[in-house]
């Protein structure tokens, strides 16, 4: 199996239309192994049972927001090193500084540009093809 076929990506977003958009974008990049969570709690449960290689998460969500999810992922040993990209509506400097301190790998502004998404993914997992 090629790297792309193996790469498992978890999309976390409370808006199902947004999850579908990101999924479409990932599929265009050749990524096939995609799972979804509608909030941070669900994402954590999924990462504990069927961990993904990469997490792409919305920031603004009920229950756990993107940074709280990141913090939980980083503090759980089996998932602590999983690359984590946040999607956010505005680049708030305080939020981004907190993200960096928690080990955020990258962030993207919504609405997400698919080329930027590709570059961000390649930045954390290497060239896609």
């Amino acid at each position, binding site marked *: 199996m090629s790297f792309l076929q193996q790469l498992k990506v978890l999309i976390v977003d409370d*808006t*199902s*239309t*947004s999850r579908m*958009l990101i999924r479409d974008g990932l599929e265009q990049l050749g990524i096939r192994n995609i799972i979804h969570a509608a909030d941070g709690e669900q994402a954590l449960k999924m990462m504990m049972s069927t961990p993904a290689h990469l997490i792409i998460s919305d920031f*603004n969500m*009920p229950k756990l927001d993107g940074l709280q999810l990141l913090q939980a992922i980083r503090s759980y040993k089996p998932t602590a090193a999983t690359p984590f990209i946040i999607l956010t*509506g505005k680049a708030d400097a305080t939020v981004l500084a907190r993200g960096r301190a928690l080990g955020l790998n990258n962030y993207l*502004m919504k*609405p997400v540009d698919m080329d930027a998404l590709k570059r961000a993914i390649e930045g954390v997992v290497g060239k896609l093809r």
Partner: protein
Amino acid sequence: MGTLATSNHIIQGEYRVSNDPDVALTTLLGSCVAACIWDPVLHVGGMNHFLLPGDNEQQIRDSERFGVHLMELLVNALFRQGASRQRLVAKLFGGANLNTQLADIGARNGEFAQRFLRNEDIRVIGESLGGDRARKLQFWPASGRARQMLLPKDVAPTEPRKTSPIDLAGSGAVELF
């Protein structure tokens, strides 16, 4: 990009929420669509105003991403006010086809909004979409009451719009506050 409106008059690319019973949000719609969404128990609601232009598949896809973003901004702002996703209801307005010579962007805008709300399980309890006349819309976000006035035929709203990365018709656009 989607912007929080600075007045109660919402222009393209903006959104605003309020729980003030005395506030009426207003807008002027041609082929644009305004989604009015509120929580009838908490008496908080809001409106956005978007246009999804595009002649080819790529442009349409880009502009739909912007539309999703603007819908999310509105819904997230309602959540921040304490609104519950299960209680949210919506009314849709606009999406007219003012110039029958051109592609029916209005219809696509309306269909996009209906699809988004269906995906998100937000019930649409009223809509006035399509037709060939522009609309003047008032929406009271605390109560969900809405009132529209159809403008005479051939009157197209000429309003400033927020420039966006996909604002294909943006030449000469002015921002007014």
